[in-house]
């Protein structure tokens, strides 16, 4: 490869991310959206100042669509998407992309599976061709060898990122405790070794045919490209695939997304190879973008963002009974997890920390948070929005999240507005409704005794 010219400085193109000077706050990511002939959505966002492109393809399938006895399969399937086709034999997806100066990755969650590629602008046709190729053909080409290999890799991923990592085991237990049997969030995304072992080639073909349909996918391109030139390519490569129509979202039949299924305080204790005891409280909370979701994000910030936050100040700074604290509204499509936790300092009774956590949560149900606290939490969120949008791959990811969950890639302004318009009254009302003392999981992780079985 011979250098042809020296690129100018890359950065976000002026006007691409507009932050109006009038109030200094408005966000905008210009885009166009079309639906191709086979039902696939294509979202294009041009930014000529960056000599690179990001491609993001989101499929509306996650661990909640897994059939019984196949936990972890959606994520295992994600790994198989890199295992080669007739046009791009095994190894070439990564090989060709990296040779062109690009890179890629993917993730699987409860609700979605997301694949992304980042490369120099000139490699865009290659990225699109590789993505179209595997979307079109991959499923039937997976054989036992490819399946067996990636199963080994995924089982090692489970060992590395959960089993051999401090406090990892909790991630396997919490979903089971928080969501009832039969609910699609009852099992962790990574799945069980047993179910991963049980998966067969037939499962792969069925899953591909059902969920990797073009009508179940959304493509985003962000960066330095000419949309007029790329449109016909999209029609030819992506718009002409066979489609069985968009599969129905199975949802969570029989479960309300507004009322918790917890009937009391659910207690459990697990042991792990850790130094300090950890106490975790978890509630079922409003689903992503539902009323109360943003309010509870702000509540979580008030609880545990920064040294001045309520939990940190009380448990870590003043009382010195906790080592660390955290609070999150973990938002999902069918319902969310509101999780509060603390690491217990050596020599401290964990029940004392548990009580302190509950006391702080109780205060949120009793009295409105101060305007100062709300403003601080909002400013934190606003900074996160702006910060994230600097990076083309992040913009691509965000456009597809809004498309998948709101049907509107241009939702960023309204998303930010949720935080801007939240009030102390609403935060109080959702804390009362959601963070109840009588419908909560209390999970305690204690240090494993030396030599003892887990």
């Amino acid at each position, binding site marked *: 490869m011979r250098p042809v010219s020296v690129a100018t400085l890359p950065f976000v193109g002026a006007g691409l991310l507009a932050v109006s000077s009038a109030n200094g706050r408005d966000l905008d990511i210009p885009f166009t959206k079309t639906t191709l002939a086979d039902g696939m959505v294509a979202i294009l966002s041009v930014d000529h100042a960056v000599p690179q492109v990001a491609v993001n393809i989101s499929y509306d399938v996650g661990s909640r669509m897994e059939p019984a006895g196949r936990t972890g399969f959606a994520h295992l399937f994600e790994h198989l998407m890199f295992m080669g086709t007739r046009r791009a034999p095994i190894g070439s997806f990564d090989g060709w992309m990296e*040779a062109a100066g690009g890179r890629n990755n*993917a993730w699987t969650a409860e609700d979605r599976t997301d694949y992304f590629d980042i490369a120099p602008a000139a490699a865009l046709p290659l990225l699109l061709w590789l993505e179209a*190729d595997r979307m079109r053909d991959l499923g039937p080409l997976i054989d036992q060898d490819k399946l067996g290999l990636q199963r*080994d890799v995924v089982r090692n991923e489970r060992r*590395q990122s959960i089993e051999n990592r401090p406090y990892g085991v909790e991630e396997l237990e919490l979903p089971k405790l928080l969501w009832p049997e039969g609910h699609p969030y009852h099992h962790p995304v990574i799945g069980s070794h047993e179910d991963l072992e049980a998966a067969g080639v037939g499962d792969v073909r069925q899953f591909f045919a059902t969920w990797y349909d073009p009508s179940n996918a959304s493509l985003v391109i962000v960066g330095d490209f000419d949309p007029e030139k790329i449109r016909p390519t999209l029609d030819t490569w992506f718009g002409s695939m066979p489609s069985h129509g968009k599969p129905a979202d199975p949802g969570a039949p029989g479960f309300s997304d507004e009322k918790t299924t917890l009937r009391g305080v659910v207690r459990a204790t697990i042991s792990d190879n850790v130094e300090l005891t950890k106490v975790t409280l978890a509630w079922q909370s409003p689903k992503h973008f539902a009323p109360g979701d943003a309010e509870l994000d702000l509540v979580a910030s008030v609880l545990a963002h920064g040294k001045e936050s309520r939990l940190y100040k009380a448990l870590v700074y003043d009382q010195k009974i906790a080592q660390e604290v955290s609070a999150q509204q973990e938002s999902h499509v069918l319902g969310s997890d509101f999780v509060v936790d603390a690491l217990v300092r050596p020599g401290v009774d964990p029940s004392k920390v548990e009580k302190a956590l509950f006391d702080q949560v109780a205060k949120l149900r009793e009295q409105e948070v101060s305007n100062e606290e709300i403003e*601080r939490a909002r400013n934190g969120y606003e900074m996160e929005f702006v910060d994230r949008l600097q990076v083309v791959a992040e913009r691509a990811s965000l456009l597809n999240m809004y498309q998948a969950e709101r049907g509107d890639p241009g939702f960023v302004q309204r998303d930010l507005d949720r935080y801007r318009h939240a009030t102390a009254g609403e935060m109080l009302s959702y804390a009362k409704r959601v963070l109840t003392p009588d419908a909560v999981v209390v999970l305690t992780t204690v240090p494993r005794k030396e030599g003892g079985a887990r």
Partner: protein
Amino acid sequence: MTHTFRPALMSLGMSLVACGAQTPAAPAPLLATPAASASAPVSPAPDPLGSKPPTPPSPPFLPPSPTVDLAPGGITVWLLERHEVPIVSCDMTVPTGASSDPKGKAGLAHATARMLEEGAGARGAIDLARATDDLGAHLATDANADASFVSVTVLKRNLDRAFSIFADVVARPRFERAEYKRMADLWFNELLERQKDPDATARVVYRVALFGPDHPYGHPWDGTLKSAKAMTLEDVRRFYAAAWRPDRAVLICAGDVTKTELMPLVETSFSSWKAPAAPPSAPLVPPPPKGPWPRLVLVDRPDAPQSVVAALKPGLVASDPAGAALWRVNDAIGGSFTSRLNQDLRERRGYTYGARSRFSVSRGAGQVVSWANVVTDKTGDALDAMLGDLQKFADEGLSDDEVDRTRSQARGELVSVYESVEGIAGHLAADASLGLPPDWQAKVSARREAAQKGELDALAKQFYSPDGAIVVVVGPRARVQPMLDKLKMPTPEIRDSEGNVVK
């Protein structure tokens, strides 16, 4: 808690990237002809995708260099303006870090950095955190081998107020006794927790095993259980006074701020920060590590479902421009998804979620490590495969494909660094902290692009050959030892999770 990523290869500090199996690109049209709708001929329908599209070479990327100024108090100011997004990121750095930790006081640079934000100027620890969060700003302090840092990132409209807090943290830390005691308790507990993390344990052991406990780089930056207990607030005050002086400091800013906006801000905020009369101390340049090195180090982690297996060697000093080419060599062997180690241990054998290599540079010496977290049953097989891959790489050097591919890959990685103001400021601050010039990135990029096979092969041999490498295994000794014996490895030197030899 929900997202699981495929390759474990996202960001590895300064080294990353890749290479694959390039096939000659067929001259295919970008747009294939759509299938005809009616009366198709007898031949099969044309493939709507056609053949693989060509990928024209991407232009080389020349990293921008910051402007340089000297503020009245003696602070050197590097500025790289970026006005597209209303964010500014600034780092202040001084060239003293963990290598200056006194004997028995491992972690003093770390403790000092932490204490900077535990109260400064007119604000105590809580007020300072509150004032920062009121602005939505990110404030952080850190120390590495050779330097200490304070950084802030904030929306432009809040820059003045955030910069004033930033200046307090740099120039007016309070170092109160109660806050020190509180920080030290938290720190000690973190060190207890570190012992339970296999990756953190491995990183500690690399450092101690490679440099030895008497070398300035031979201890973990965040200290040890014993040294943390031995530390006092007076140690912190002394360290700060020697390290943090305006005539030793470089301020690096990137983002939506102009020189005419920034310089008055620096002058106002730092007007009272004066260098003492005594001349500043020169940055410490530790010698290269000498050995003798153990061949095999084993840290027992009973019942662990995986072992960390690693091969460790001395590396390059930061000022050696060969580091630019070493980036590409590292990409080929373990710095990218398609690297040899990852392709073999993960994609061919399934022993691991990811195998990688990384080189780090510092002022006096560097470190090169290749590693993987492998299923316990395959600890011996995985180590054998890893050492074999390294041997072959050292013997044969890079393939022609690897020579080409790593050039594109390193370029792509570097472009991404310059996408965010935090990335730019952090990258430049690393250079400034090591005494490298403001145009270092531009200079070495040209060299990285230009490096040819001969130079790359020599680096592969010198830095990745398993000859003389220290092999480190963190895993369950009872199960792993018989596997290592089968490989004809020497008797392992047993070390604890802080890297001390267990007699």
